[in-house]
């Protein structure tokens, strides 16, 4: 109980160190952005940013500025992104790019003394705590809180039936063990259980938290291809490092394939090696595209209200009934997709581990 209190206090304390920033949205180059642009709205909600936008009341944006950590030519720069004043000013020679080009939202260097982007200079190495990273912290805290509590209940309730949070998680954990790990991996499934469980619950909870529109939910974490890249890289590295001899033999010298597909031009080994790389790559794209597409659809339905509202307010109100209904329906579907995508990612990772550690069926008859 005390550790839980400590963790929750640290979490809220972490966010309270960034004083809320309320800034007027007016300014020379902002007035023409009053015009509603659905495409821009959707993109701005999907991509990463250096501040966590909570609400816009009238003309004021309420945001939480996140820390900016840069390495520029060997020197560390750490400061709060509130110094950028929502992209209106530069600080220490950096600014947030506001033009809609490839660098939009990222930190670029300015020509000293002006606000113009220095196109000749390289961008600094950006290690900032951005919205996605803060979203990962939120999800990580949720997972740790839930699982430390459940682990403690298991030690306290030894021999008794599960109660409370245990009874919610136990079917899921047993499901991963009995339906995903054991059938796919076979004998050595216990080695991979910690990773598979972490993967499943992290992806599942992160997907769910991304669907909550209020702070601290709503950061598009698994819809960021960098995050899914890292998860797929973990799977790739674990398959590569736990591959046994027959696994690598199947890749480089597949038994049963005629020699002329392997010798002068190693066609089959090339196909198998691309398979080794493509399988985690597809894992990455599948999770990223599913979650991002879901967010885009919900944002699209909501933008539809404003697009019609521009034509006439009555039409806006009429469309809003239909739009809200569809948005709720899609959000419910997204709940299902959140679970299915976490399950499929875990299942395929387990399958790849199983293939890597498979004892060859007829290893007895060694060639």
């Amino acid at each position, binding site marked *: 109980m005390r550790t839980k209190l400590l963790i929750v206090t640290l979490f809220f304390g972490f966010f309270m160190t960034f004083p809320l920033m309320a800034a007027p949205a007016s300014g020379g180059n902002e007035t023409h952005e009053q015009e509603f642009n659905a*495409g821009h709205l959707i*993109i701005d909600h999907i991509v990463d940013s250096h501040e966590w936008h909570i609400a816009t009341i009238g003309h004021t944006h309420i945001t939480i500025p996140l820390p900016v950590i840069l390495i520029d030519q060997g020197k560390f720069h750490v400061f709060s992104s509130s110094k950028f004043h929502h992209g209106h000013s530069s600080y220490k020679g950096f600014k947030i790019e506001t033009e809609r080009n*490839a660098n939009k939202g990222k930190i670029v260097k300015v020509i000293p003394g002006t606000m113009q982007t220095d196109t000749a200079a390289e961008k600094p190495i950006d290690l900032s705590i951005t919205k996605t990273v803060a979203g990962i912290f939120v999800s990580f805290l949720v997972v740790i809180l839930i699982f430390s509590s459940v682990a403690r209940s298991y030690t306290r309730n030894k021999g008794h039936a599960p109660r409370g949070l245990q009874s919610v998680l136990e079917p899921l954990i047993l499901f991963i063990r009995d*339906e995903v790990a054991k059938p796919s991996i076979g004998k050595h499934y216990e080695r991979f259980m910690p990773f598979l469980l972490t993967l499943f619950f992290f992806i599942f909870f992160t997907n769910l938290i991304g669907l909550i529109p209020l702070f601290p939910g709503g950061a598009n974490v698994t819809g960021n291809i960098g995050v899914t890249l890292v998860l797929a890289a973990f799977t790739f590295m674990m398959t590569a490092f736990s591959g046994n001899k027959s696994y690598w033999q199947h890749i480089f010298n597949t038994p049963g394939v005629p020699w002329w597909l392997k010798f002068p031009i190693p066609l089959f080994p090339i196909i198998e090696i691309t398979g080794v790389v493509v399988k985690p790559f*597809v894992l990455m*794209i*599948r999770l*990223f*595209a*599913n979650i991002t*597409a879901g967010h885009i659809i919900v944002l699209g339905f909501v933008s539809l209200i404003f697009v019609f509202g521009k034509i006439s307010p009555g039409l806006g109100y009429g469309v809003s009934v239909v739009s809200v209904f569809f948005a709720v329906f899609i959000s419910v579907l997204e709940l299902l997709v959140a679970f*299915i*995508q976490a*399950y*499929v990612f875990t*299942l395929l990772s387990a399958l790849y581990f199983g293939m890597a550690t498979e004892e060859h069926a007829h290893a007895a008859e060694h060639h």
Partner: protein
Amino acid sequence: MTILSVLMQVATDLAPLAKMAAAFGAGIAAIAAAFGIGNIGRAALESIARQPEASGDIRSNMIVSAALIEGVAFFAIVVCLLILFI
């Protein structure tokens, strides 16, 4: 002569054509995914009708296959989104 001038105009700025092509691509990806997953659904329902006791097994396999096929469809969607927004 007019066709030539229209083609010349098109050749200088292909962005609208690219956007139209991206939209078509996304539509074709949706059709293909619907076709594929519809097939899976049909086979799953027929198998459940033949042997209702296996419906749990069949359901999990159906969902896994559907997710894999959706993965491929999403490849196409991601390419179209790249054209539209980058």
